[in-house]
């Protein structure tokens, strides 16, 4: 028989006290400030903002410090904080065509208006450890050059002119919001994009990679990847007009994918889309590939049974907070459940006549 037990309060309190001490580490080493994390571990901060689904670099940095660098734990902290905030409204859709680009590259066109701008990238580095960083080296200022005037149009715009790529005509519908209503199938593309932009980077990367390896292949080229700042504009009811309320860094990836055409559509390129908070290149490309794979039905393609084509599989398993919550709960006390399993197995073994424990099993 199971008897409810109490206790463990002191053990828990002491465990948390020790956690705080371990988090701080050796006190002979200087404490790490939240601003240091914000400025020097920026890509970790960006990931926590993207998957935490809340753009606030200071809070994300604090969460990383508190979680000892466990980014999923940090994302959990941000998600929990997010639920305490009253929502003032929704922004106008951001205009990424007007992005102040730090980086803008295309794998499909060499000479495109606005040019190929590499930005602060790890690409073309040799991936050799830089021991100068361990010695606290000063960094020389990066070179500057006069900025050539002119717009930086989206690559898909010039493919559009020839009708070679599907269009994305503007709409002004109110999108569904999975933070307000439960995620239900079938999910519209707007809902899928919301789920994907906050999805776990590793899971999204794995799914995207699977499409490249043949599980729902969609032949993606990176039509364009851009990283930079965009203003966020919101309609203010008490003013009666929209104002800019801030600026955020975004990473946008547009893929150009092969499409043979269908009964209703002529052969043309199709598109996948990724848009993620912060400088999150790998995630944004992954998102675009998975978005494109999930569009098989609206494009009249075959479902080949690939994981990345299965919206239910993708969307219900992409959220690392839901996943970690369910996964890690099995380490918490399940004494009652296990007790009943134990009883059951003993009973079944008795019935099968297997209850004689071998004395000398060797």
């Amino acid at each position, binding site marked *: 028989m199971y008897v409810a037990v109490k206790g463990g309060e002191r053990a828990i309190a002491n465990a948390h006290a020790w956690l705080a001490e371990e988090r701080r580490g050796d006190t002979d080493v200087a404490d790490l400030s939240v601003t240091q994390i914000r400025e020097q571990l920026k890509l970790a901060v960006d990931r926590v903002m993207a998957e935490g689904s809340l753009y606030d670099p200071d809070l994300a940095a604090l969460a990383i410090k508190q979680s000892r660098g466990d980014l999923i734990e940090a994302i959990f902290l941000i998600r929990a904080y997010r639920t305490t905030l*009253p929502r003032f409204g*929704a922004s106008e859709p951001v205009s990424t065509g007007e992005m102040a680009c730090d980086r803008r590259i295309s794998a499909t066109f060499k*000479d495109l208006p606005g040019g190929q*701008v590499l930005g602060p990238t790890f690409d073309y580095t040799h991936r050799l450890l830089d021991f100068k960083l361990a010695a606290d080296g000063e960094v020389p200022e990066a070179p500057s050059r006069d900025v050539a005037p002119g717009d930086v149009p989206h690559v898909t715009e010039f493919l559009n002119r020839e009708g070679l790529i599907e269009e994305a005509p503007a709409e*002004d519908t109110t*999108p569904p919001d999975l933070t307000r209503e439960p995620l239900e199938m079938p999910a519209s593309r707007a809902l899928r994009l919301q789920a994907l932009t906050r999805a776990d980077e590793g899971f999204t990367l794995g799914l995207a990679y699977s499409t490249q390896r043949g599980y729902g292949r969609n032949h993606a080229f990176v039509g364009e990847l851009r990283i930079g700042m965009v203003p966020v504009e919101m309609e203010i009811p008490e003013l009666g007009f929209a104002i800019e*309320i801030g600026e955020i860094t975004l990473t946008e990836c547009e893929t150009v994918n092969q499409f043979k055409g269908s009964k209703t559509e002529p052969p043309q390129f199709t598109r996948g889309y990724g848009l993620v908070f912060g400088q999150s290149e790998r995630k944004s490309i992954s998102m675009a590939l998975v978005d494109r794979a999930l569009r098989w039905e609206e494009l009249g393609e075959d479902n080949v049974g690939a994981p990345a084509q299965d919206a239910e599989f993708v969307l219900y398993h992409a959220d690392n907070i839901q996943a970690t919550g369910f996964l890690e709960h099995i380490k918490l006390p399940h004494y009652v459940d296990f007790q009943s399993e134990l009883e059951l197995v003993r009973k079944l073994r008795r019935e099968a006549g297997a209850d004689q424990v071998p004395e000398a099993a060797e």
Partner: protein
Amino acid sequence: MKDTFDENALRKHWMGLLAKAPAGRVATLLDAAMERPLFTWLRAPEIGSTMVRGRAGATGAPFNLGEMTVTRCALTLETGEVGHAYIQGRRKADTEAAALVDALMQGPQAEAVRSAVLTPLEEEMAAKKAARAAKAAATKVEFFTMARGED
């Protein structure tokens, strides 16, 4: 989006500038220029969020990208002007300064506030933006064709 009223366009511009200003900067510029006017709160500074939206394929149907933190407040000067502020982040003191500037810009001190706060702010922010754009420009690829050794 274009505003029909010029007045709104001007106000929209300065409110956007105040919202994007670096932490503490509006207060520093305002306090260096003048004594803060007396005011009462219409809405004390409050922290909340805004759901940021994007568009599928950059131009298509809107979707929810995620939230950002926002602080807002509203106040009335003793002289009657009402100032509003909505700014990114959790920055109560900054919203107060921004709402004061918004209110002052609607009164007799508008020109003084413009030259002491808004103009320097605009210049600083433009310089910062330009410096970043210049670094990006230095990473622009200049393609060239290799000589093929044929005459």
